[in-house]
């Protein structure tokens, strides 16, 4: 190892994944799940953790075998690794964290089809050593998580009047005639929020259309 674990190059990998090339706001990947699981903060959190774990884990595995993968079948190999990882996690959850696995239900399986996982494998892990790939997976997972959590918080508060299942909008406000915003629970609400977040993030990070 000629390089410190968190050298300036590696710090840049972290910053890129989280901010400069954020998978959602910059690469516009993983949008479907960002819509599907953000009606409540809890599911958004769990999905975030799951995706970060899978992206980092599969990045390491693919990076380790990157020099042996025949290029014609690399996508299939990547998919196999990701699926095997996700299914193993699902099995472990079912055996030892049954409550969590019940809440996740279909979401765990959805991680396999998340474009971010495959995207990072193709774009990064195929050409970089394991530790860098791990950092890249972690950073992209965190970038994805940040956006999901923001959307989850806003949608749950305005759509259901709760946060993590606890009522945050007092009953007295409802008595005044306030009603929950039904659009927030549906996909369009997430689309509007997502658009606004992409706009804000891109103005700050100085994104330019190439």
């Amino acid at each position, binding site marked *: 190892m000629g390089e410190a674990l968190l050298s300036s190059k590696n710090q840049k990998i972290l910053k890129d994944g989280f901010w400069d090339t954020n998978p959602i706001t910059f690469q516009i990947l993983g949008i479907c799940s960002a819509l599907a699981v953000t009606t409540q903060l809890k599911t958004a959190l769990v999905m975030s953790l799951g995706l970060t774990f899978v992206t980092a884990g599969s990045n390491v595995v693919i990076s380790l075998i990157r020099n042996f993968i*025949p290029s014609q079948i690399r996508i*299939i190999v990547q998919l196999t690794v990701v699926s095997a990882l996700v299914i193993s996690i699902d099995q472990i959850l079912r055996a030892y964290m049954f409550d969590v696995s*019940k809440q996740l239900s279909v979401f765990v399986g959805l991680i396999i089809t998340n474009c971010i996982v495959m995207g990072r494998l193709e774009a990064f892990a195929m050409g970089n050593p394991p530790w860098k790939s791990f950092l890249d997976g972690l950073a992209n997972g965190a970038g994805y998580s940040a956006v999901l959590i923001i959307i989850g918080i806003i949608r749950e508060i305005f759509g259901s009047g709760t946060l993590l299942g606890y009522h945050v909008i007092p009953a007295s406000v409802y008595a005044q005639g306030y009603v929950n915003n039904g659009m927030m629970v549906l996909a369009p609400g997430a689309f509007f929020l997502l658009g606004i977040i992409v706009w804000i993030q891109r103005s700050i990070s100085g994104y330019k259309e190439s």
Partner: protein
Amino acid sequence: MNTNSTRYTFVFAIIVCVVSGVLLSVFSEGLRPQKELNEELDVKRNILKAVVLKEPVAPKTKAADVLKVYDSKIEEVVIDDKGNVVEGKKPKQLTGKDTNLFPLYLYKEGGQVVAYAFPVVGQGLWSTLYGYLAVEADATTIRGITFYKHGETPGLGGEIEKEWFQNNFKGKTIYSLKDHKLTPTIVVKGKAADVVSKDELSYHVDGITAATLTGKGVTDLMDRWVRVYDAYLSKLRKI
């Protein structure tokens, strides 16, 4: 090494398949006993929830304690399609072939039956809904209902697993003593009080906003299973 030759590609693909295949089978088989235990415990927890125990078990109660309560309060029997109890059979022994046999769970306090619980299963919008329905000793009034497994949209159809939805069923009647007919609970679109007359409120419950089809699924499964178990329940009613 030429990693692009046909031969290498084949060998590599086979290795990947075998390794991941073995890994997955080991996980699946090795964890099977633990998984089955969890599922059984989940079913028992939900039966206990549906029958509304006089002293409810807290959500965090340890597995062993839940099983102890279950064994002391719940009696498992099997009935046939004529409503007769089949001696010597337990719900656990039922297989897919036993289409004429149905599990029934009796909740007893001090030797007296307090409630009858039975599974209700049916299609929602996206998924199969699994739940338990419990009726009081009068075989007419709903004591509780629970849905414990489904794949409906969280926040929309997924609301069927929430207390507010399930509480709406409590006190509704599945049989009309006045008209002498079955009245399986119907999930309406919107608020029940706005949609049906006062007389019919005894078997209509509020729907879930933006989840009309999941509600329809619940209506259908109520209708199906209330009719199936009526073979047994009708014998208990004092008319």
